[in-house]
């Protein structure tokens, strides 16, 4: 049985129908890329999937239950990372990570330094984010997917502002997560390099 599924979804923004009758199912280990040109509705779809905007039609189900009906259940199984990093510029990397970790609901002890090292920010534990570069901020924001137990990740252009190495780190993490039975839905304009892991696609918009 599919764990995350979408039925007959419709999205209307600015009186345009961006997409309609959209269906898809995601099983354990599923890796799904949303494709489409700028403005085709990728971010809108992701925001619908997490419940930030309401679909005008159709339903989104988690474990067979509509996410509107079991919001906190769904939210505790899900991690969303959007266009904005969702980190505070006036906190240090470590402080930001503490908050993200607590909000994720994961109760295990975590060594923040080792995660920062994994993500290529070794030694920046106590630097304010306002004093980091665009890519470094993005990495701190992305560190949340290193610190969560949730099954489903929804990532909106995670590779924005990342350099090649940063992109590779995230790609590997995604594949690892899926191999372990997790699920990832993401949107990006860049080419994924995931060494043959089966990648599903949704195309939005007319052009391909």
């Amino acid at each position: 049985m599919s764990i995350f599924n979408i039925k007959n979804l419709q999205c209307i923004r600015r009186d345009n129908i961006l997409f309609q009758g959209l269906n898809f199912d995601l099983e354990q280990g599923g890796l799904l890329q949303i494709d489409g040109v700028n403005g085709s509705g990728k971010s809108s779809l992701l925001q619908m999937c997490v419940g930030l905007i309401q679909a005008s039609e159709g339903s989104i189900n988690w474990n067979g239950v509509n996410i509107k009906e079991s919001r906190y259940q769904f939210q505790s199984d899900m991690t969303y990372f959007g266009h904005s990093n969702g980190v505070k510029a006036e906190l240090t990397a470590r402080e930001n990570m503490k908050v993200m970790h607590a909000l994720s609901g994961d109760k295990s002890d975590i060594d923040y330094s080792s995660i920062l090292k994994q993500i290529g920010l070794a030694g920046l534990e106590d630097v304010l984010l306002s004093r980091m570069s665009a890519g470094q901020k993005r990495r701190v924001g992305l560190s949340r997917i290193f610190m969560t137990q949730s099954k489903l990740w929804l990532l909106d252009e995670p590779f924005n502002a990342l350099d090649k190495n940063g992109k590779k780190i995230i790609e590997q993490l995604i594949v690892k997560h899926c191999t372990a039975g997790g699920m990832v839905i993401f949107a990006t304009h860049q080419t994924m390099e995931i060494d043959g892991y089966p990648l599903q696609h949704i195309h939005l918009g007319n052009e391909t």
Partner: protein
Amino acid sequence: MNEYLNIFFVILRRDLTLAFRNKSEFINPLMFFVIIIILFPLAFGSDSALLKQLTSGIIWISALLATCLSLEAIFRSDFEDGSIEQLTLARYPLTLLVSAKVTAHWLTFGLPLIIVALLTGLVLSVPSQTMLALLITLLLGTPVLSLIGAITVALTIGLRGGMLLSLLILPLYMPVLIFSMLAVQNATVGQSIAAEIYFLSGILVLAITLAPITTAAALRIRLS
């Protein structure tokens, strides 16, 4: 339960850290409050008999105005950097997270404000029974200001046209002001202030129970 308490303190700690990062941040609201108080003698002329009559009213109004100016800070930066989405999508009830944020606001702003208000009262030689009434009303009233203020901010943050709602809610400050002033006036002439204190406590209890829920709902409306 313990887990909820833990997350409450994480958010509280986060907001307090943000507030205290800048050393002067702690003193600024207080100085601001005092400066507003200074404005009055400048505007009303220095007829000291007249001013003496108005002192406690001036202190309360200044507290109210200073609060108004400080409120936006509760959610603005979270809204701008996308943190608010993350809070909404966390696995914990938004009401809980919002409570922590409001508590942080009161601790960094309301509490110091009360202390400075009392000091100001001392310097301006407010009689002691008035002073007591001032202290009690501020203790009961300032949390209400933070709590109700949070609703307004949640509704209007980053929004065009949210002004109408803010208009509806700002008058909610009036009851607090009215009862507080009644209490202070009664205390000054030596009457009992029990009734006003009951009213204010009632408002406070109501605000504590309902405001966070309302704020959370307002935030969700605002984000969708």
